[in-house]
């Protein structure tokens, strides 16, 4: 816990130094960021928490993969696959009761995310293609697919703007009155608890960990189908990212358009790393990164510092976590040796 706080602190510190070096007042910039993220009930719920939702879901998926030793860096693409599918089905559900429409939209998004990552999973099983490269490449394919959809089959009825029609009210997630916070937060929290339970309390969680820790030992002494378990973890990982896309369309944008995600898929990797594979930790670190992104917008608006600069803080946080882990492992090894 101390290490995580220090890592995130290092990220903010480097960001502040960078602001000072590039001629901005770091106190004013970070202050504007804080107010934009935590300054009011509305800012916290409608800015920070709304952004934390997709981060939480994608990071949970990334962690499921990581536990089995699979690096899914295609969260961005799977998010878009879920968003496309959710929009497509949602637009057809005008007359449906909400109680049926919402679960259907989310289930389809979940499935679409799994389907999008099924290609890398299959390539890995069948041909031994590294999932790192295949999931990465499919991000670009997904972005092109969104671009095609909003100018083709899913374009709004006037055929002017590159976006889809708005979802019918019945397919939209309920919102907390007075805010923009939607049901997605309960879904994300529920998924975190579910993943925690599976990791801690079930056989499959144990098997995934065995595969991730030592694939050869898991196969030889544990008799586990290592490749199949890894592929399954990859599918679940993609499904969570797809769900995030569906939740974003159903709860925030109500429509599909390009650049729906400001890089959630990559930020979620930082979220998962900071949480060090703990599902409960992901809740906290997703809120922290949600605050960073919400605050970045406020910073650009109020002080004129480019919002994109927060990626510096994200990158430094990742690097600090990596360094802290490496050095602590080395210290432990010295002690036991």
């Amino acid at each position, binding site marked *: 816990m101390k290490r995580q706080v220090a890592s995130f602190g290092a990220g903010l510190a480097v960001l502040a130094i*960078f602001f000072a070096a590039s001629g901005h007042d770091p106190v004013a910039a970070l202050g504007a960021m804080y107010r934009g993220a935590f300054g009011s009930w509305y800012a916290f719920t409608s800015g920070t928490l709304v952004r934390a939702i997709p981060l939480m879901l994608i990071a949970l998926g990334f962690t499921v993969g990581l536990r089995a030793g699979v690096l899914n860096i295609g969260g961005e693409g799977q998010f878009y696959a879920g968003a496309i599918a959710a929009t497509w089905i949602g637009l057809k559900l005008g007359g449906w009761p909400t109680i049926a429409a919402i679960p259907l939209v989310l289930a389809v998004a979940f499935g679409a995310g799994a389907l999008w990552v099924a290609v890398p999973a299959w390539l890995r099983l069948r041909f031994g293609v590294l999932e790192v490269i295949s999931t990465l490449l499919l991000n670009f394919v997904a972005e*092109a697919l969104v671009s*095609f959809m909003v100018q083709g089959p899913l374009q709004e009825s006037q055929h002017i703007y590159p976006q889809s029609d708005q979802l019918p009210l019945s397919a939209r997630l309920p919102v907390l009155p007075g805010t923009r916070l939607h049901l997605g937060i309960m879904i994300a929290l529920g998924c975190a608890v579910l993943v925690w339970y599976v990791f801690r309390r079930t056989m499959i969680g144990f098997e995934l960990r065995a595969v991730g820790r030592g694939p050869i030992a898991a196969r030889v002494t544990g008799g586990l189908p290592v490749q199949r378990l890894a592929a399954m973890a990859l599918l679940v990982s993609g499904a969570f990212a797809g769900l995030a896309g569906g939740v974003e369309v159903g709860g925030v944008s109500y429509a599909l358009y390009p650049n729906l995600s400001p890089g959630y898929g990559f930020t979620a990797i930082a979220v998962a790393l900071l949480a060090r594979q703990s599902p409960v930790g992901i809740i906290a670190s997703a809120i922290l990164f949600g605050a960073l992104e919400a605050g970045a917008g406020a910073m650009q608006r109020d002080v004129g510092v480019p919002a994109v600069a927060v*990626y510096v803080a994200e990158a430094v946080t990742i690097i600090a976590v990596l360094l802290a882990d490496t*050095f602590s492992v080395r210290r432990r090894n010295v002690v036991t040796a």
Partner: protein
Amino acid sequence: MMLDAGMIDGFLAASVRVATPLLLAALGEMLAERGGVINLGIEGAMLAGALAAAVGAATGGAWTGLGASAVAGLALALVFALVAIGAKADQIISGTATTLLAVGLTGALYQAAFGSAGAGLSLPTLAPVRIPALADVPFIGPALFDQPVTTYLALVAVPLCWWFLFRTRTGLALRAVGESPEHARAAGVNARRMQFGATLVGGAFAGLAGGTLVLAQVGTFAERMTAGRGFIAIAIVVLGRWHPVGVLGAALLFGAATALQFVFQAMGLAVPYQLFLVLPYVLTLLLLAGLVGGVKAPAALGRAAE
């Protein structure tokens, strides 16, 4: 409209032009991977190179820009190398972090350097250098002998990389490190220094690739302008089977897939343009699946030396 000779000329020339930054970045990544280092940070190094080229060109002309791009790419690779080789952290994640770092730094520095209006199209750029006589050869003339100097640089780098990897002692040592750092070390090779060196040179190549993009193609900088070309370069290395000539072929293939889009537009074919954007990626996945079975990656890829 029918295909005519002029269009084929244009298509080939465009293929080579698009392939140039990909080739430079992929050759650099190939050197690192031959030493066992997979660097996803080259996307970031390329982006840093692009911004440095714009700033350098605005202040000291196109050649200053080109030099600055190589230095910037090397600096980003140094960040990656310190974390991934120095501290032996996971290379994939270190590379992702390096790229995020570059996205943040270049985005913010760009606005600091050029203001919110941007650099515009007023940057000095590298004009094509026409090689007399050879440039008049049908088809390959315009493609190979009427190009900006960066294209010649990239093409010359192919045999140079080959010579280095397969005909020098250092190249042999680097390949040994990529197969087994332990054995290389036992044979007296400083494995860590090899990995550092290859990664830094690879970063300089990626920086030059970003510089090429700005100085010989687009003529200006834009936030996130590399748009995944660094990641494509990683696919090209795999597709080119970690061999300089293979990498050249794979880079040209990607260039051609993109250039095809212009030809189809000129012929007035109503095919959604996204199809062409996707084509190279799908092609890589297909080729990866079909070819990767018969080719072996460096055995110690992703493993930092002791």
